[in-house]
């Protein structure tokens, strides 16, 4: 600017006066955001004082008064439940099976990073792997957590690198292959956890012994993977002009949305076994997964229906005018736009599904929350420290749910929702 004015032949400008101190920097920021009116200043002082006192007591409690040893006592059972106990796995040598699944997860994370070439995928992959590797350095004695466990945890670093290289330099680096590998990995995980009769290293472990965070994540993964397609089908059915299909979809959606999940879960335990032959392999895990998936897909259908309704009629009409048949109009024009517009609602439903996996306590499955609660009930000397335990479990859930909403925000940004 200064150069322009000189070129115009005017007298050289006096040097710019710096803006007043009250307009820039920390002080300016505080004036603008905290003390911009008398009433706001009073509010800031009052709320600030209350917050400071509250934070002081919280910190004092966290550092001095709280006893966090209950978390270390439960330790690995948070993650795999009673999977590696003598009762479930005689010899206590089953711990490596969930560890292999974890390695598969980090490899997939690495592949995602390699394909997306940085950004959010990189941060998520690195952060997840860093947390897993930090677990290897927990201050446990070697008897509690042996070398083998620690080494398997450390192996996640090369697994991440391997996945990244696969995603970056091999033809496997595409979203399609990631989806194929994820499904395959999930099945391998189920097989590993279940074990195979007769193979010495893979002694079978009863499914009702599975538990901990692994259980929550498994139920959530199955539910997320299946509830989206089922929800899309239900939403399309509800909007179809075929009366019978529409009626069936509406009935399904309204019944599943109208009843609490724990009622459905309990019903699945009492009613569903009656409908199948007695030797049918119908374990709690399978039933819980089915009920949670169906419950969630009813909500998912309503979200997607909202997206379809918000879409301008002209989109579908233009597609039809271009000669696309009905199903291609839906698959290529309406659905992608509808889904893109309701990503927050869909991810909100995924988060809800993950939180709902904590309700499987009603059919006596030991998810991460139930592991903690049964521990407190069985060891009443920890009763006064139950607070610490539940705060820890809340943080565990929070990390996953907040991570999901963070990624959804980034995906939305990437797709330019609201900008186009």
């Amino acid at each position, binding site marked *: 600017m200064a150069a322009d004015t000189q070129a115009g032949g005017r007298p050289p400008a006096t040097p710019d006066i710096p803006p007043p101190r009250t307009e820039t920097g920390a002080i300016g920021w505080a004036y603008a*955001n*905290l003390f*911009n009116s008398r009433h*706001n200043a009073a*509010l*800031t002082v009052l*709320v*600030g004082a209350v*917050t400071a006192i509250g934070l002081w007591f919280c910190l004092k409690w966290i550092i001095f008064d709280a006893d966090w040893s209950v978390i270390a006592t439960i330790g690995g059972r948070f993650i795999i439940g009673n999977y590696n106990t003598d009762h479930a796995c005689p010899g206590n040598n089953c711990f490596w099976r969930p560890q292999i699944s974890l390695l598969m997860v980090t490899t997939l994370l690495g592949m995602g990073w390699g394909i997306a070439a940085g950004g959010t995928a990189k941060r998520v992959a690195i952060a997840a792997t860093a947390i897993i590797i930090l677990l290897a350095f927990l201050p446990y004695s070697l008897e509690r957590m042996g070398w083998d466990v620690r080494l398997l945890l450390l192996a996640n670093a090369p697994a991440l690198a391997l996945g990244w290289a696969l995603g970056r330099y091999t033809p496997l680096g595409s979203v399609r292959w990631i989806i194929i590998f994820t499904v395959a990995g999930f099945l391998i995980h189920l097989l590993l956890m279940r074990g195979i009769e007769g193979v010495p290293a893979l002694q079978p472990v009863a499914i009702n012994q599975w538990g901990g965070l692994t259980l929550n994540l498994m139920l959530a993964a199955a539910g997320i993977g299946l509830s989206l397609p089922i929800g899309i089908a239900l939403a399309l059915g509800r909007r179809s*002009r*075929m*009366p*019978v*299909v529409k009626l*069936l979809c509406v009935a399904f959606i*309204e*019944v599943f*949305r*109208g*009843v*609490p*999940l*724990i*009622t459905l879960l*309990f*019903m699945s335990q*009492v*009613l569903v076994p*009656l*409908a*199948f032959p007695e030797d049918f392999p119908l374990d709690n895990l399978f039933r819980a997964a089915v009920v949670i998936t169906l419950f969630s897909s009813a909500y998912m259908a309503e979200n997607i229906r909202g997206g379809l309704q918000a879409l301008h009629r002209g989109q579908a009409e233009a597609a*039809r005018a271009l000669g696309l048949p*009905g199903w291609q109009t839906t698959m290529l024009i309406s659905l992608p736009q509808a889904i893109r517009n309701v990503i927050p609602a869909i991810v909100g439903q995924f*988060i809800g599904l993950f*939180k*709902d996996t*904590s*309700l499987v*306590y*009603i059919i006596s499955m030991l998810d991460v*929350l139930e592991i903690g*609660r049964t521990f*407190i009930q069985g060891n009443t000397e920890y*009763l*006064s420290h*139950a*607070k610490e335990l*539940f*705060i820890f*479990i*809340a943080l565990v*859930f*929070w990390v996953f*749910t*907040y991570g999901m*909403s963070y990624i959804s925000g980034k995906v939305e940004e990437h797709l330019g929702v609201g900008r186009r």
Partner: protein
Amino acid sequence: MAETQTGEPGGKKGLFTYQGVAVWRHSRIIEWALQIVSAVVVVALVVWFFTNIANEVRDREIPYGFEFLDRAYQTPIGEHFLPYESSDSFLYALGVAATNTIIVSIVGVVLATALGIIVGVARLSGNWLVSKIAQAYVEFFRNVPLLVQLFFWFYIVLALPPVREGHVLGGLLYINNAGISLPFPQPAGAETGAWIILAALAVISGFFAYRLLSARETQTGRPSYPIWAAMTTAIVIGAAGWLIISFIGGEAPLSMSSPEPQGRFGRISGGWTIRAGLMVLLVGLVIYTSSFIAEIVRAGIQSVNRGQIEAARALGLTPMGALRSVTFPQALRVIIPPLISQCLNLTKNSSLGGAVGYTELTNVAITMTQTAPAISIFILIMAAYLAMSLTYSLVGNIYNYRIRFT
């Protein structure tokens, strides 16, 4: 699409054509075939499912039917707002449990909405500190499962001292692991009934005073203080009624009853005790749901055009006044539908009450399955929950219908 093709004169004729189009390509026929197939499949599945259940019920001699409803339930219900004895029937016990669910839902919905609006407005505050605290509140409580929060509050209450050694605040407020006891007005016979009728009359006359004066204010522009006048009217009539009734009846309509520890175990009688289970469930539900409502309120307020707020400010309204009489009424249209679905969620989430010792519908039903046919009980409580959810839908539909014409 089918219609455009039917008109073609040169359509092929043959055994497998309909209106000149091969049947497997005719959209109307495909649709009908699809519908018939899906109907047959679903009906077959449902019939198979229930036939198997019916067979099992017959073979294993599992009880079924609804005769049990008249039998005595014979099991205590921890918390009940309707009078309940163990000798009461199953049907009445289910009614008691449903009342528990409805009461916790109504109180929870009112409190969660109030708190949610406060947090949602705070989230949009121009004050950085206030808005960040509201954001932290929302991001934390929304993302942690309700059951974890309920257990957290449950074990905090459980860790309180027992009734005998409980905290006493000012000799009036008793806090212990059984709940909170506080002074509460106690009714006193016929005088109470008479005064309640009078108080209702006082409120109604206050309401009419408000209508009258605010109409005058809008018509003439003279300040008439309708709110103050209405409150004065109601209070004066209510107080006069109180004095007259106590004078005639010789006893005050309501007397304050304070909680008193009694006996060897210090059991508290008198006053009003909010039991631990109800308190924990309410606190958990209200905090959890309010974090969702706060986001709905924020989105609703943000959906109002900025020009509306600027115009309101330009007309001289205070920021609070602009929010109250310009922004918020417009935001309500966006807020109400998702708010109703959150209220339904709160009602359904109250089914977790059993985990913290509040005997609501699902909890009582699950206990009942030990002594009564599970199938029949589940049909009943599914019907009860569906009725509640339909009530919420009805309210939502009425609201949608009404705003269409304004």
